[in-house]
């Protein structure tokens, strides 16, 4: 029975080549838009994450801290939610870093006999804990710990950064939802047009005693096939463009900073399955409309 439906669906695709071609092309273009968008945000997300790695909270310690106090404090900080790892920076190291950083003001350090800097912890956050509020609350908790003199976390710069990533994330969510809906509608609309131009055929089948399922199932199968073909085609084009662009670009701009990556297998599979679902859904809605009319 199901093989019969499959045979009819395949046959139908060949019989209505023009309509099917148009549908598959529209689906593939839609998938191309959606997936290039996803690709962009996956890579932009990677860029942001690699930046986030630069974020750190400095905790300056009281000079009176003992060895055991240091250990206790370390554990206390690590147990705070959102802290990924921390590094102890003794004051000698701090001075060395400062000198390296300020080579143009090196004259400052010339007549320095004593090291006036405090010991400190450099604390890195987990990738997810990147919101302004989160950092602030972690910093406050660290500051309240014993032996911590003061914390520092590049407020102004970070605030701006957090604002932008938040904005970026919001924009990408909004656009993601919008694109997804737009594409579902576009594909459904296209399929609706196709079925509209085949409504006579549907009507004739009903008149000669075909049940709704007999009429619908081949259309559903066609929708699934079109969705799959469209997705594969769209992703194929995206992949080719991606390979073309990255291979031409990596020579120009610094290649070792980020590695642009293509969509993961999971996302690709997800896109294909969504596309099939949309293909089916388009048929489902349109047929419902034309069969009940």
């Amino acid at each position, binding site marked *: 029975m199901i093989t019969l439906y499959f045979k009819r669906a395949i046959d139908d695709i060949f019989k209505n080549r023009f309509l099917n071609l148009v549908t598959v092309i529209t689906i593939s273009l839609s998938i191309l838009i959606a997936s290039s968008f996803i690709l962009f945000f996956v890579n932009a997300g990677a860029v942001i994450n690699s930046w986030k790695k630069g974020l750190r909270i400095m905790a300056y310690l009281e000079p009176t801290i003992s060895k055991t106090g240091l250990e206790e404090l370390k554990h206390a900080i690590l147990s705070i939610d959102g802290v990924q790892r921390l590094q102890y920076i003794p004051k000698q190291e701090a001075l060395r870093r400062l000198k390296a950083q300020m080579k143009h003001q090196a004259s400052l350090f010339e007549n320095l006999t004593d090291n006036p800097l405090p010991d400190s912890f450099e604390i890195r956050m987990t990738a997810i804990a990147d919101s302004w509020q989160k950092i602030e609350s972690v910093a406050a908790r660290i500051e309240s710990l014993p032996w911590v003199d003061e914390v520092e976390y590049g407020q102004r710069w970070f605030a701006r950064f957090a604002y932008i990533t938040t904005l970026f994330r919001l924009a990408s969510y909004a656009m993601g939802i919008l694109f997804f809906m737009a594409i579902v509608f576009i594909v459904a609309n296209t399929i609706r047009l196709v079925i509209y131009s085949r409504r006579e055929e549907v009507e004739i089948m*009903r008149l000669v*005693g075909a049940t709704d399922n007999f009429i619908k199932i081949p259309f559903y199968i066609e929708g699934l096939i079109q969705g799959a073909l469209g997705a594969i085609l769209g992703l194929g084009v995206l992949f080719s463009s991606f390979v073309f662009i990255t291979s031409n670009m990596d020579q120009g701009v610094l290649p070792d900073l980020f590695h642009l990556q293509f969509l993961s297998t999971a996302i690709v599979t997800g896109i294909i399955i969504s596309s099939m679902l949309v293909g089916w859904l388009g048929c489902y809605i349109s047929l419902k409309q034309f069969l009940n009319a």
Partner: protein
Amino acid sequence: MIPAGGEKSSIIRMFHVHLNYGPKKALIDITLDIAKNQFVFISGPSGAGKTTLLKLFYYGEPVSEGQVLIDGINLNRIPRKRIPYLRRKFGIIFQDYKLIPSKTVYENVALVLEAAGKKPRLIQKKVKSVLRLVDMEDRLKSFPPSLSGGEQQRIAVARAIVGDPKIILADEPTGSLDDDSADTVLELLRGVHIRGATVIIATHDKTLIRKTGGHVLYLKQGRLETSTFIEKKYDNTIF
């Protein structure tokens, strides 16, 4: 054919049926009773309501008022799901053929049997034999738009009889056919009648009625005017 008669063996009955298309009254107060295995003509001038009356039989249109009983089923109360099964009782030759342009002649005819869930083997045999009957066995793979008017009509006839339906509804089944082809079609319908089917032909062609004879329902402006029995007459006026 007695309108509103109560014979046990009636297959189609209508009681005071009205059909309005918006303000237009296409059928007015039709009451009729067609017995099993009758051979009925529906006649009347253009726009009288012949096609519309046929539509009511297979639920192509719901009545505006009144009752239609087909083979014991009251169409006013038929659930949506049952409509396909109702329609399989009928073999319909539509006035405008209603062939699917994107399917071949073979597929158009086979569709009826496929929809009824028949076995592929049986389908192939039946379709080929019925296409031979209408003299179209060499056009299996043609598409309807590449057929002449008469050829399309013959495919429509083939499709109507392929499923051995209980009732044949034929709307101008010979309108596009020359005399010989028309006779072939008429012979086919008579054959189906002899094998037990009820045959209902809507036509304005008086010659056709005279050739076969049968009950004639005469419609005019949506009303059933007369209902008579016409004897078969051999009318051999040749060209």
